[in-house]
């Protein structure tokens, strides 16, 4: 208790403002004054003043960010004016990112190509239609002609873009089960 009291007096306003900023930044939801004062072991009034000071700072320097009051707490967010540019940016993010369902489907196609939708269903045990559409949209897979069997289903294989995105020269560079066994023996 003694040391906590000491700490309170030692911390300058500037330090408190900086700390509040760092905590709001790392938090995964809006931070309340109550939680801030608990964590920092500092007076609620001083914490409130620090948040206000921080808000003024962000406003006065015309930052691209703002300290926004929401759901009884504060969070760091982009300024609304920039929504368009941010949306453009979010669209350009590398498309190697995939949902687990798409990734599973891609794995089956990569190792079993050429492979049909019913065959993928059999291996994964779930419908993969939307995953296949995503993969086609992202150009990670391509149609590889029809299989000469009942219903002549379309076969799929990986594309050149797939090789580029996963840094492979050709399909023989895909790690094999043997490569993996070497690692877990």
């Amino acid at each position: 208790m003694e040391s906590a009291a000491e700490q309170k007096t030692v911390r300058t306003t500037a330090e408190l403002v900086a700390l509040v900023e760092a905590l709001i930044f790392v938090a995964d939801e809006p931070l309340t004054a109550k939680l801030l004062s608990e964590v920092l072991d500092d007076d609620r009034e001083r914490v409130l003043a620090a948040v206000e000071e921080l808000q003024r700072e962000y406003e006065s320097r015309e930052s691209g960010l703002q300290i926004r009051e929401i759901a009884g707490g504060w969070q760091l967010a982009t300024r609304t004016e920039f929504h368009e540019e941010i949306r453009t940016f979010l669209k350009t993010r590398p498309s190697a990112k995939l949902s687990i369902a798409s990734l599973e489907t891609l794995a089956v196609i990569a190792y079993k190509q050429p492979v049909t939708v019913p065959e993928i269903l059999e291996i994964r045990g779930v419908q993969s239609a939307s995953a296949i559409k995503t993969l086609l949209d992202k150009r990670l897979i391509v149609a590889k002609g029809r299989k000469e069997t009942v219903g002549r289903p379309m076969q799929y294989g990986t594309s050149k873009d797939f090789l580029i995105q996963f840094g492979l020269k050709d399909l023989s560079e895909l790690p094999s089960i043997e490569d993996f066994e070497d690692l877990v023996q």
Partner: protein
Amino acid sequence: MDQEREQYNFDFHKENAQIVRDSESVNIKIGDFAGPLDLLLFLIKQEQANIFDIPIARITEKYLEYIRLMTRLDITVATDFLVMAATLIEIKSKMLLPRDPKAVEDEEIDDPRQELVDRLLEYEKFKTAAGMLYERATVEQAVFARGPIESDDNTEVDASVFDILTIFQKIVARHVDEVKMEIEREEISLADMLKTLKRRLFEEKEISLLKFFEEMHSKRELVTAFIAVLEIVRTESVKLMQKVTFGDIILRMSEPPALAGG
């Protein structure tokens, strides 16, 4: 993604050779060495020896002592440690060979220890580099990235080729019956192995180590056999003989020493 960043936390500079006895359980831990070269460097430092002039006999003895200790504590000795033991014994025997007087000027080049010294020096650089990485990771622990925001799409993952393979294997595994009974082979103890070896030696007088090792059914048994051989050489009147370098090694009963006047 960044907030998922894992933090590294372990005592890199811990005392390697410390043996920790956990009295609560039967669990006995031994400060693990990152490999045989790591153990050798430790022994060289402990013996305050010069890395460029390694007292091979002394270091080999210490090395084997450590391996025996590990076996006694029932720690599985990795085969790489045994390979190094064999290398040390080989260097030791080479150093005992009388030098070819004509080769005197080539003495430095012919030093049987040279290759090992080179490897140790090369290895130590990377060991130091590993320490540097550890320091860096520690400093990085003090920096935090932002918490998640709306635009982060948590359902998507950034995949690598190995993820694709792992995922494929998991899918395949779903279909495979996982009930695979692994029949555990009865493991033979060091004492039993020693008994077998002594009996065989008594009966056959000479044993090919290569053949003896080939009879072993598992890595574990092989290690036990290796230790048994080391033990028997140390404690009994037994000789190890090798006709050509890298050739088979013969284990043979020694002739009883001729008694004076007998």
